[in-house]
């Protein structure tokens, strides 16, 4: 039987096992919406802004490992998703974005709601397609899912003109795909792995440095075993947190611009660096010429273009992290050589000295709510078992520093693009995927307002997210930079005219709580976490002067951290009033 393109598309999604799609209708997508209406296998979640759809699908993808699916209309529908697509692209998150397009006969005519979706998104997708013939539709959708989820994952957009969704053809979903121009690697070169193992076993001051690739590659168990077998220290990037348990003493904290003193110092002094699924990003390396000056570097990555991009590497291994790490474990267990326990003991002694500095310490006597305290309590009260999404700013760094993630896919944040507005919609996707789980969105009063409209979506679908708003009445991270580098000229970083978040949450049908004293923090968190079936917006009024430490200023080396909080001169609300 012949089906319309719209019906075929929906059948493809069903056959692909898609459970939710996040979207927003409009003219060019109406045939598709009609096809969705006629079935109930694929559930559509109606967001309030297409950016929210992309982030929600992204949150779903990051927390499950399955692709997130977005459906939007042409023109403004698809342009509104661009920030979300770029966010997913930078963090290698598998998304399939289906966008309506004007009819093929109108393409290029500046038709109503026409944009060159393929052209606009080209620099921020792994690949994209324009389907011009309904007979190509099913095969293109199959390819889109295949490309999005294999190799280094990423977003794939499929642009579908309206007439293609009306035309009819026979439906058959391809069982498999093979593309001569796309063959992602799976294994890893055995000779290189052998060389790497020899180097790793010969190390005196070894260091693991791992990133989001370990999580994307489902390689957490292998990484954990390898690190434990060797007894080496490990640091993880912002994107890698949770791949190796943070409560294991071998974990020395996150590295990079706001990493711990011990992690950055250990990086600086290590003699063998084992990088896995990490990309030597500038927020991690600081000044590359001062990066790990003594280290011989092994780098495992599925994407050859990540290797030796910023820092030259001695032993590159292109391969899937899981495969390579398991192979390393096998070889190490079989090897006659063992790690140099004596050297290792000396190395750990050094690291423990650095640790004693207690670089994340903060003023616990303060009369004002310290943001770090809120996150410490959140960690305690959720027993480290919550899914935590975040926005971008100081709160993101504190969440990364103070919430100890023991499992992968629990910490969901926009690391690469640094997209404010990501946290709440991402939490929606996480909560859809894990209806029973505790999902917290750690945010700031500036970030939350970028996608605040999604509170309405949360109401419609009964998503009991806990919003932890660390409200310092500043774009805190911007203010911190202005304090350090612009002689305290706080240009346009004060958040004036804030809404009453409690009333705002209530007007959307949720609960809200405002917390102003340190003594009330724990009770408020307990109260919110008890409410299993409703969204609670916790508005914590925090110390406006707090800064994120340690800090490596851009262009400095790893061992040149700012540690001691200086006394900030920050105009308070009262002075500004």
């Amino acid at each position, binding site marked *: 039987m012949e089906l319309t393109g719209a019906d075929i598309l929906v059948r493809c999604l069903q056959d692909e096992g898609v459970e939710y799609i996040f979207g927003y209708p409009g003219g060019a997508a109406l045939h598709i919406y009609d096809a969705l209406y006629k079935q109930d296998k694929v559930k559509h979640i109606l967001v309030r802004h297409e950016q929210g759809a992309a982030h929600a699908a992204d949150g779903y993808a990051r927390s499950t490992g399955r692709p997130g699916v977005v459906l939007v209309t042409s023109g403004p529908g698809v342009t509104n998703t661009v920030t979300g697509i770029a966010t997913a692209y930078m963090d290698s998150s598998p998304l399939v974005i289906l966008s309506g397009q004007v009819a093929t006969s109108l393409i290029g005519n500046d038709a109503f709601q026409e944009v060159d979706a393929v*052209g606009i998104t080209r620099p921020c997708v792994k690949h994209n397609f324009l389907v011009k013939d309904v007979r190509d539709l099913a095969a293109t959708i199959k390819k889109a899912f295949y490309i999005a989820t294999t190799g280094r994952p990423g977003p794939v957009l499929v642009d579908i003109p309206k007439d293609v969704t009306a035309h009819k053809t026979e439906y058959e979903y391809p069982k498999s795909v093979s593309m001569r121009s796309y063959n992602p690697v799976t294994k890893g070169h055995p000779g290189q792995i052998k060389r790497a193992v020899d180097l790793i076993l010969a190390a005196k001051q070894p260091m693991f440095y791992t990133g989001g690739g370990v999580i994307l590659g489902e390689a957490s168990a292998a990484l954990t075993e390898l690190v434990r077998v060797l007894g080496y220290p490990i640091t993880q990037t912002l994107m890698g947190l949770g791949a190796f348990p943070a409560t294991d003493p071998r974990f020395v904290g996150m590295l990079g611009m706001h990493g711990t003193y011990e992690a950055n110092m250990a990086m600086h002094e290590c003699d063998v660096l084992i990088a896995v699924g990490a990309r030597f990003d500038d927020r991690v390396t600081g000044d590359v010429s001062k990066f790990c000056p003594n280290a011989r570097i092994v780098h495992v990555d599925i994407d050859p273009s990540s290797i030796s991009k910023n820092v030259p590497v001695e032993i590159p291994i292109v391969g899937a992290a899981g495969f390579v790490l398991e192979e390393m474990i096998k070889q190490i267990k079989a090897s006659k050589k063992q790690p140099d326990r004596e050297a290792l003991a000396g190395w750990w002694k050094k690291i423990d000295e650095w640790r004693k500095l207690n670089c994340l310490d903060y003023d616990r006597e303060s009369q004002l709510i310290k943001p770090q305290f809120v996150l410490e309590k959140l960690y305690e009260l959720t027993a480290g078992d919550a899914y935590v999404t975040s926005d971008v700013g100081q709160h993101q760094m504190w969440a990364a520093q103070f919430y100890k993630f023991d499992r992968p896919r629990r910490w969901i944040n926009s690391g690469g693009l640094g997209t404010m507005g990501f946290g709440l919609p991402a939490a929606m996707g996480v909560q859809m995927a894990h209806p029973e789980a505790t999902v917290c969105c750690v945010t700031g009063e500036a970030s939350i307002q970028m996608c605040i409209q999604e509170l309405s979506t949360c109401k419609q679908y009964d998503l009991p997210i806990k919003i932890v708003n660390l409200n310092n009445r500043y774009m805190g991270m911007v203010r911190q930079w202005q304090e350090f580098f612009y002689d305290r000229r706080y240009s346009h970083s004060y958040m004036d005219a804030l809404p009453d978040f409690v009333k705002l949450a209530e007007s959307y049908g949720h609960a809200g709580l405002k917390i102003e004293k340190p003594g009330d923090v724990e009770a408020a968190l307990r109260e919110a976490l008890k409410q299993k079936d409703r969204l609670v917006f916790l508005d914590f009024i925090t110390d406006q002067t707090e800064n994120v430490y340690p800090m490596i200023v851009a262009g400095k080396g790893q061992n040149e951290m700012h540690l001691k909080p200086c006394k900030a001169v920050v105009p308070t609300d009262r002075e500004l009033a």
Partner: protein
Amino acid sequence: MRHIISMLLENEAGALSRVAGLFSARGYNIESLTVAPTEDPTLSRLTLVTSGSDDIIEQITKQLNKLVDVVKLLDLTEGTHIEREMLLIKVTVEGPMREEVKRLVDIFRGRIVDVTEASYVIELTGTSDKLDAFIQAVGGAGILETVRSGVSGIARGERSLRV
């Protein structure tokens, strides 16, 4: 260093802009770029000339290989190869210059393909260096227009770019 990178591309709409977009987005330079279909209608062959340090060229080839539409790629400059570019040039030629320019064309093994009382159109094929040298040599005559095809190339002997 100057590199000639040759690749087979899926003959799909937009494939060329993926390559061009990659160069502009990542700040790599393109000196010339040519593209045309091959004997297999599903494939186009694209040749581009770029320059950069070894690190940059390594990144360029890795990034190109990552493009889903790039089927296969070869850096011709890594081995022996043949490089050709075609030049069409229109020059004003009057009086004694007519003979002079004709002689130059012969020396460079070019051809005069159009003649008027006041001008020649000359066709010349060779490496980019040779074309540069010719343009310099006829510089004395007034150059009205030049058009160059951009470089194409092929590896010598066993080495071949094919699927």
